[in-house]
């Protein structure tokens, strides 16, 4: 009866499990034509680039997906034993933190030349691949564009109570805090956070905040630009209730940040790893990336298929990734404000 079935289930699963074990106990080490990529960036652009890279070079790429900050921590914890060859981060602070621990090898000068020097590490330990932008996403049926304030700092006021969604966990939000602290001073940044804590609505991620605005839960979200485009891709741009608003005028509400990559000093396959990063900023690689995500290419002359606000029309806050550093101060501020 069913006892027999169960016993058979146990036997079968036992046999199955044992049969599968040998395949899984093999460590995923980079060897020969294979590199290990720790990826904190969104998957579509990474998978597009990896496919193009493997096709062009024959080098295979094993990808470990995760959150950038967590992967950076994992790399730090792994130290010299890290199985990773390349670290692709969604945000520059994770790369800065890894570089500060002395874990990243210098990139080839030829690679670094492909993008503007302001988008990469001064010591050449990592390179920016794409730029993204902090924006305001608003629900068109709940608020007029004309009613939006002149600065992102204005949202931290009682008049916006219950209307502004933000994600304190988001790496990009932390960079925005850093930008405010750099441009307007630490006290202003702290007061802004306390205002958001009291009057804003916290979400777990930028994309959750954008979805809440799209769904009409509240009118405003502080987000990265591409979350809106990702949602528009899912729903259809014509059916979107929400739109993007660029504050510009050098306000920290419009902040350009970069995603980028570095090669680990401990890379088992350093040559292949360097060639991967070089491919990332090549014309072919950049096109593959920006076709898959609504971010700005950092290599000149590449055109995104998304209807992005032109990069030279953004008029962003005058802050570079180098100034943002590892954004550690942002965490202190978040904690002081009671948001973390």
């Amino acid at each position, binding site marked *: 009866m*069913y*006892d027999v*079935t*169960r*016993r058979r*289930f*146990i036997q079968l*699963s*036992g046999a*199955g*499990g044992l049969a*599968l*074990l040998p395949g*899984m*106990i*093999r*460590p*995923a080490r980079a060897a020969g034509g294979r590199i290990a990529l720790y990826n904190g960036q*969104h*998957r*579509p652009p990474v998978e597009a680039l990896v496919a193009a890279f493997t096709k062009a070079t024959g080098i295979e790429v*094993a*990808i*470990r*997906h*995760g*959150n950038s*900050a*967590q992967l*950076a*921590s*994992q790399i730090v*914890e*792994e*130290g010299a*034993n890290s*199985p990773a060859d390349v670290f692709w981060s969604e945000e520059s602070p994770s790369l800065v933190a890894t570089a500060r621990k002395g874990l990243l090898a210098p990139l080839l000068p030829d690679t670094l030349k492909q993008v503007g020097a302001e988008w990469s590490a001064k010591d050449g330990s990592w390179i920016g691949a794409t730029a993204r932008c902090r924006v305001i996403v608003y629900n068109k049926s709940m608020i007029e564009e004309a009613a939006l304030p002149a600065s992102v700092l204005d949202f931290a006021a009682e008049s916006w109570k219950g209307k502004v969604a933000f994600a*304190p*966990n988001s*790496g990009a939000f932390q960079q925005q805090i850093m930008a405010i602290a750099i441009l307007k001073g630490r006290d202003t940044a702290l007061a802004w956070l306390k205002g958001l804590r009291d009057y804003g609505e*916290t*979400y*777990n991620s930028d*994309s*959750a905040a*954008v*979805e809440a605005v799209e*769904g009409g839960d*509240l009118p405003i979200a502080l987000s990265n630009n591409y*979350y809106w485009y*990702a*949602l528009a*891709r*899912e*729903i*259809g741009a014509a059916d979107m209730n929400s739109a993007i608003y660029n504050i510009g005028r050098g306000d920290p509400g419009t902040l350009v940040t970069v995603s980028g990559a570095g090669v680990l000093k401990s890379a088992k396959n350093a040559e292949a790893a360097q060639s991967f990063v070089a491919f990332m900023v090549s014309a072919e690689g950049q096109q593959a990336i920006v076709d898959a995500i609504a971010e700005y290419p950092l290599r000149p002359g590449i055109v995104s298929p998304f209807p992005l606000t032109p990069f030279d029309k953004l008029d962003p806050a005058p802050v570079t990734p180098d100034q943002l550093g590892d954004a550690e101060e942002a*965490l202190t501020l*978040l904690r002081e404000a*009671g948001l*973390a």
Partner: protein
Amino acid sequence: MSDALGDLEAGAGRIRLPSTRRRGRPSSLLVLAAAIPTILILLPIIYVVLRSWNAGWYAIAAELARPRTALLFWNTTVLTVSVTVLSAIIGFAGAWLTERCDLPGRAIWRVALSLPLAMPAFVASFAWKSMGSEFQGLTGAVLILTLESFPLIYLPVAAALRSMDPAMEEVSRSLGRSPRYTFLAVVVPRALPALGGGALLVAAHMLSEFGALALLRVQTLTTAIFQQYELQFDNATAAVLSALLMLLCLPVVLAEIRLRHGHRVSKVGRNTARQRALVPLGRYAFPAILGLVALTILSLGIPFGRLGYWLLVGLSAGRGLDTLGPALGGSISLAIAGTLVTTIVALPLVLLALKSGGIFARIADRLPYVVHGLPGLVVALALVYFAIRLFPPLYQTAWVLFAAYAILFLPLAQSAIRASAELVPRELEEVARTLGRGPLKAFASVTLPALAPGLGAALALVALELMRELTATLILAPTGVSTLATEVWSHTNDGAYAAAAPFAALLVLISGVPVYLFTRRTLIPRRG
């Protein structure tokens, strides 16, 4: 049974131990075997203590004194207590209806009340959240999580209600006690251990729940730990919060011990399907059915409906479908192997605890429950820390992941195995020995078959949890290995819900396999 295992091992080693060892100290081999899970369990505890220690006393005190910590503590407690109590009420009521009342279609309701077990909480939460902001927040989270958690109480209670010897109730009634008194004085106390075991699991799930709560915007100690690690790695705050979380597990574990105390009911032979008179529902039949229909719609209908909706309207439908096969393969192979490792590791712990009432055995038996409330993230980071320092060649092999699985889900296997092990009289195997069976044969022919239902339930329960495990898998799985759960996570992260839907649906479907095997055992009436 502990004798049995000791004898089994002794037999394998061709050392004949005196058979007068009965009720003496457990064999050293058994102690050794039980030391493996204990060492594993100690790893995250040591890790949390080490990391907290690095912060220093001042930082620990400052962290504990923050108003935010109090808020997190409060939210965690309210969520855990509310969901556990509500699940207990629904689970017990459901079990009473399907096992003891003349409810029409009881076989169907048994399935309907078990199936929500296959629905991962984050899938259900996503479905609810996408219907409106009113389902977010603590109240929404309590309701949604209760809807997916109550089977953990329904199943053991239903099994207990069925396997209870009707003689006890008949005696009570024949002594002139009312049905209500009999229910309260005979039935409820005998169902309490099952209810307590289920409640412990629900509570531990709530303490470590992340995905659902992040979607529903509820901040608990666990979501705060995730946030801390998202913000910064070498993080004293996260360690202190983890320690606090383990402290919160303690009263839950102690309460369960009290509930189980003194309940050792061994029985020879299997339960016979003795006919018992069912309670007539009368005019309550209609409201009871209405309630069950509503429960089924809320716990199953809405999440499935939402998956279907995204599949139909989402523009990313079909994206990444080529990874469906590898992800399914990853889920199944990791879950099966991890389940076997977890169950095998759990067995000596249970046997030792039953054999020896000693302090080591009791602590070793209970320690896993304390760690069960820790989020997978903390356990995974602890294993990264130790694997890199102590066993670098093992790092990023599936073995470290299996160790994490064992640490996270030992209590599920322990509870299930114990349920069977407690029913086996120690004398049974000795009878076999006196009848001339060797120690190995006695164990294999008497004890092992008696443990089989428990082992089967353990395998099914652990497999179910492993299929939906996300955070430890993300951090520890060999690079390039994906599972259905990690794919769902990736796609929803990118806002590609239609792309995620097939993975989520497949995850629910294959979760149905262990649920089916598990509920079959507990819920199909046995023929004598």
